């Protein structure tokens, strides 16, 4: 199977959820560029599950929004959607030919320990267990190691950095690197290291502010369609067609959907307009390629990544695909893929839906999907 066949097969499983818990599947962004990884055969399909911000029921009730809550008095059963999605992914995995494999990665902020009530008598293991006790679907599908679990690699986010000291999630890491076609071209990290505010302010201070003043903060709506009319000859800015609702896995999709392009000549403001984390991400990319010890240490890595081409993150809750294209030095080209979140809301035109996004990568084909929860889950 080539990368397109694998994507189609995966999409068929996603679309099968429409009979159950998904209203519709949207293609938020896509970049299909086989040259990015050197026209390698597609041996593996990656699925990225972004921020869930899970809380215990008692703690979630104190805030205006969360994994189960869109706004006060309005709930969404994302746990049902997550459970069914993982089931569909497992079915997809079982049907994969032996020469192909699937890797799932949870992109950090799996739990929200900043908003969780901490009691003096509890250690981190008890605190994590209390949250997972109230979220059995997430524990069964993403934490346990058995046939019903995806057994994903789990990243540490800024909201759950402390879970490293718990028994159940002590295996989480700051970053993972993966080979694509024999090259260590893929770096997956939460993304908070690229966020100036997060690195400037102490975590405990931010947690204290959130606990004291975060209860009345409303959820954000993120406008995910960024397509604009592009003038002829323009090298930067919006590129590709608008996000679309997918009807069938066999339909022809544009190679480029809703991405944002920058170049080495783009100034800081233009880079930040592509994605507010992009300027620092590019600094990190240069440092990691060159083997800068400070950048490697921050990521918990030992070895440089000279062939880094793609960074996958969560953190900002805004699903976006950004291409930083370096025509003169192609080895410096970087794709920045933010896979969104399962918290707050996404806006497409006038439609506002609870955010439930995933990222999928196979070969040089990167996609971001939004799964609109079925009305029965609202």
């Amino acid at each position, binding site marked *: 199977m080539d990368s397109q066949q694998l994507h189609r097969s995966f999409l068929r499983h996603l679309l099968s959820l429409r009979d159950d818990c998904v209203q519709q599947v949207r293609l938020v962004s896509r970049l299909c560029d086989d040259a990015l990884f050197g026209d390698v055969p597609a041996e593996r399909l990656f699925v990225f599950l972004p921020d869930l911000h899970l809380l215990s029921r008692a703690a979630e009730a104190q805030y205006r929004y969360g994994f189960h809550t869109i706004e006060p008095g309005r709930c969404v059963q994302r746990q049902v959607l997550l459970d069914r999605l993982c089931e569909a992914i497992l079915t997809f995995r079982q049907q994969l030919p032996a020469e192909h*494999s699937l*890797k799932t990665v949870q992109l950090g902020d799996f739990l929200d320990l900043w908003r969780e009530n901490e009691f003096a008598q509890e250690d981190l293991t008890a605190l994590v267990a209390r949250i997972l006790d109230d979220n059995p679907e997430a524990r069964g599908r993403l934490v346990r190691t058995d046939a019903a679990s995806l*057994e994903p690699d789990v990243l540490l986010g800024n909201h759950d950095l402390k879970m490293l000291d718990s028994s159940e999630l002590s295996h989480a890491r700051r970053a993972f690197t993966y080979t694509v076609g024999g090259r260590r071209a893929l770096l997956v990290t939460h993304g908070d290291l690229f966020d100036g505010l997060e690195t400037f302010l102490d975590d405990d201070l931010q947690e204290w502010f959130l606990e004291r003043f975060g209860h009345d903060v409303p959820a954000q709506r993120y406008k995910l369609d960024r397509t604009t009319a592009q003038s002829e000859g323009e090298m930067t800015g919006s590129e590709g067609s608008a996000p679309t609702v997918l009807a069938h896995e066999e339909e022809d999709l544009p190679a480029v959907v809703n991405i944002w392009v920058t170049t080495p000549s783009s100034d800081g403001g233009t880079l930040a307009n592509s994605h507010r984390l992009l300027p620092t991400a590019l600094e990190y990319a240069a440092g990691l390629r060159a083997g800068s010890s400070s950048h490697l240490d921050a990521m918990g*890595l*030992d070895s440089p990544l000279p062939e880094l081409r793609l960074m996958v993150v969560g953190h900002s809750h805004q699903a976006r695909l950004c291409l930083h294209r370096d025509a003169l030095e192609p080895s410096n080209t970087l794709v920045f893929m933010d896979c969104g979140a399962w918290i707050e809301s996404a806006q497409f035109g006038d439609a506002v839906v609870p955010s439930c996004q995933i990222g999928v990568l196979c070969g040089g084909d990167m996609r971001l999907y939004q799964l609109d929860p079925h009305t029965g889950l609202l």
Partner: protein
Amino acid sequence: MTQCKARRWRSIAMWLGLTVQPPRRFSSRVCIVLIGVGLSVLGCTYPCPRPGFVGIPEALERSPDFALPLGAEDHQRLLGFLVHGGRRPSRGWSPQDEDPGRLQRIQDTYGPLLVALTQQAPTPEDLRAGTGSLVRLFDDPRWLLAVHDARVETDPAGAFYDLDPERARGLVKGDFVFAFYTRRLMPLVVTAAQVPGLGQGEHTIWALGNEQAGSYTGLVVFRKTFALPIRAE
């Protein structure tokens, strides 16, 4: 009389500041410090009291039960467990995905031991304290731990299977304890109909595989706890 006068004159001279009190040869403070330093030196030189047995932790914190000698797939699973710091690697883990520097550190530390475990199931001679060929690959070849494994109770003859060094023994290497068994532990899923006394539904019990005389055929690995010294002298 002369001594008495001399002592009095000396005290008057000291009171007037004309001289100072000669220091004692061994003040009590100096003695306390010397004893403390001495005890510290002794404590660092002689081996600390070390535990003689180790308990097998729960499933989340131990490796799967491997059959020895290790096959290629189990070799990779055990390597993944060590690379992940004592956690079973996620499905589809491949050494190629690991940071080469991190992987190299693990290979440098555990590589020779893993290779030895793929070659043959160790015999009691291989695991003999101090002289066994395999124990030399561990931190302290003389330090063999009895293994307490709550998963198994007694053998068919009624004797406790664990805590018998001839049947189960542990050795420390780096951050991990390697526990060897003469019989491999295997999970069996049973129902109440099969095992009276169990509740409804399916349960996992642990059964002992066939014992092969003269070799250790089972292995489980887990993180060394804080109670065990980092490296025995």
